[in-house]
């Protein structure tokens, strides 16, 4: 999966999409070729390279079992590191026990201490650090106010709502002033509305505090909204590490193209370059798109990735003729097999000549609904610039 696509470009995965940084800069968090193998021989994480700068919001995203949580737990100190190195501010922490690492973790179930009040939960970490009672009370109070927990400070965690528990967990972790906050699916246990609002709070909080957040989620939307950079993981390795925008616009692997956004993937063989764009021979004719800096030669198996929002729909109309799509456009034709309107968005599924299905998303007002109803013939087009050509693996 992670084989280097351009062997002549000696760029390690960790460097993807990063500016070259002078060697003297020490990163807030650095993972060097980290590997995790469980006792039974299962490889959970492999070749994990990552450099995070101070104050970055970085997400690990991927399907369950991809190794994202395991990686987080290795950073936290809950899992032993089989090979490789984890450094925090340039210091190797592989052997440091969890309680001595400058990290703090937020768990999916929040893991509040059920036998302590909210206030005591928040103060506990400070008490263990040996702060004087008055000092820790003041600090805890500050955090309680910051997270608007004053009303429930005396209550027990089991009497709180999901959102309140979430904030208590945040307060408890932040009050000990960690260098890095680790968040393991922290929004997973909340309902959709709450998730949205807490998502925003989280982002604001991170900006204000200026500390590094490492956020694990299986929901790509959370990762894309919150993060400065996203690590997409699959089967224990990094598929792509880049900004949400890049990830979305220029996926590097078929996995990322399927996992992030809503893309149509059309397979074919590379023809070559024309006008700075790659051309791919597909069952639907030649399609063009931007390359991804990859070394794709003529004849190589390639995939054209088309974001569903980039696609224009051209109803065949009564004449049934194929509309002219213009020189730079790419085109496909097919039949609508599903058409749904959700709010202002029109969702179409179009079956192409070879049986492949393409999803299209568009604003509902752009088309006459009866011309894009199930059974209608339509042509689809998009600006070649919008699509990306990647190597088929």
């Amino acid at each position: 999966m992670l084989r280097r696509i351009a062997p002549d470009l000696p760029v390690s995965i960790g460097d993807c999409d990063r500016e070259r940084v002078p060697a003297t800069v020490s990163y807030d968090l650095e993972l060097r070729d980290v590997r995790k193998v469980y006792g039974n021989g299962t490889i959970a994480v492999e070749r994990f390279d990552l450099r995070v700068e101070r104050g970055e919001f970085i997400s690990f995203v991927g399907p369950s079992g991809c190794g994202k949580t395991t990686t987080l737990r290795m950073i936290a100190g809950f899992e032993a590191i089989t090979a490789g190195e984890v450094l925090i501010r340039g210091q190797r922490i592989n052997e440091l026990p969890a309680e001595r690492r400058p990290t703090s973790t937020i768990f999916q179930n929040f893991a509040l201490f059920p036998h302590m009040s909210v206030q005591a939960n928040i103060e506990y970490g400070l008490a263990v650090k040996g702060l004087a009672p008055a000092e820790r009370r003041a600090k805890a109070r500050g955090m309680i106010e910051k997270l608007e927990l004053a009303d429930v400070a005396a209550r027990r965690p089991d009497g709180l709502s999901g959102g309140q528990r979430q904030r208590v967990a945040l307060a408890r972790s932040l009050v000990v002033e960690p260098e890095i906050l680790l968040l393991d699916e922290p929004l997973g246990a909340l309902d959709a509305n709450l998730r949205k609002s807490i998502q925003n709070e989280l982002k604001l909080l991170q900006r204000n505090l200026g500390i590094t957040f490492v956020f694990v989620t299986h929901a790509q939307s959370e990762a894309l909204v919150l993060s400065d950079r996203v690590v997409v993981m699959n089967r224990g390795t990094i598929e792509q590490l880049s900004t949400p925008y890049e990830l979305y616009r220029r996926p590097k692997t078929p996995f990322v193209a399927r996992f992030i956004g809503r893309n149509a993937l059309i397979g074919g063989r590379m023809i070559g370059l024309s006008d700075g764009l790659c051309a791919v021979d597909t069952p639907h004719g030649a399609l063009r798109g931007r390359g991804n800096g990859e070394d794709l030669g003529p004849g190589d198996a390639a995939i054209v990735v088309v974001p569903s929002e980039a696609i224009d729909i051209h109803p065949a109309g009564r004449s049934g003729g194929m509309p002219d799509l213009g020189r730079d456009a790419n085109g496909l034709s097919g039949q609508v097999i599903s058409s749904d309107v959700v709010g202002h968005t029109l969702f179409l599924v179009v079956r192409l000549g070879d049986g492949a299905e393409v999803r299209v998303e568009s604003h509902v007002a752009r088309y006459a609904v009866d011309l894009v109803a199930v059974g209608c013939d339509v042509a689809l087009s998009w600006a070649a610039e919008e699509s990306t050509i990647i190597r088929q693996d």
Partner: protein
Amino acid sequence: MEGRPLVRWSLMIYTGLFIVFLYGPFVVLAILSFQAGPNGGPQFPIIHWSIYWYKQLFSLNPPSSVAPLPIGDALVRSLILASVTMVLSTVLGTITAQAFRRRFKGSTLVFYLVVLGMIVPGVLVGLGVALVSNSLDIARTWWGTAFATHVVYTYPFAFLVMLAIFNRFDRSVEEAAWSLGVPPGRTFRKITFPLIFPGVLSAMLFAFTLSYDEFPRSLFAAGPDLTLPLAIYGTFQIEVHPDIFAFGVLTTLFSFSLLAVYGILMALSLRRARKVAIQEEAA
């Protein structure tokens, strides 16, 4: 259920019989303990109601042909033995269950080794202990050989109780503590232990009552100074008087009071769990 009278009636009868068999012997015992003394015997009918045999237990009666029940020392021994056994078994059981939270090499073997202590027939264990201590020339005592066999017997029960408790225990609470900078030892004392305390109480109750009641192992392992069950059995060898029933009633009440203490401690621990405050940490 509503529409099936047959099922309902048979379940009711079953439950009724269950209760009769559970409490019947005790009720009979209790009634006979109020037999007249010193001439009334351990059988119906009741000549007339009296508390003579209770007084007999505490040597409050004028001298008669009936000798006092020789169980006073045995009772003290059994209480001490049960208490110490309870503490050791619960500590061992908790530690072992803690070890079993992670898979380790040979864990299955260790599990069966521990559980063997409650599976092997008690008479055989007792006999074995007697043979071994004879051949090794170790004196058999209630505080030595019997204590060891009691621990071997009750430790698996405590272990299984704690294993069940840890099974439902949310590990991430401990991890949260570590990640806040709390060292593992302190995490166990301040976070884990308060949360598993109800389980610890249950393990203690098991260990105490099992040891207090233990007969077959003690029979061979206890040596010349008898534990309570042995002493009671010994009184049957001569002549049975209703004072033994009076004692039965008292000891059953004692067991019930243990249960009550357990219930109160449980309730207290739940309430205290709600009150464990940071003040403790200040110390």
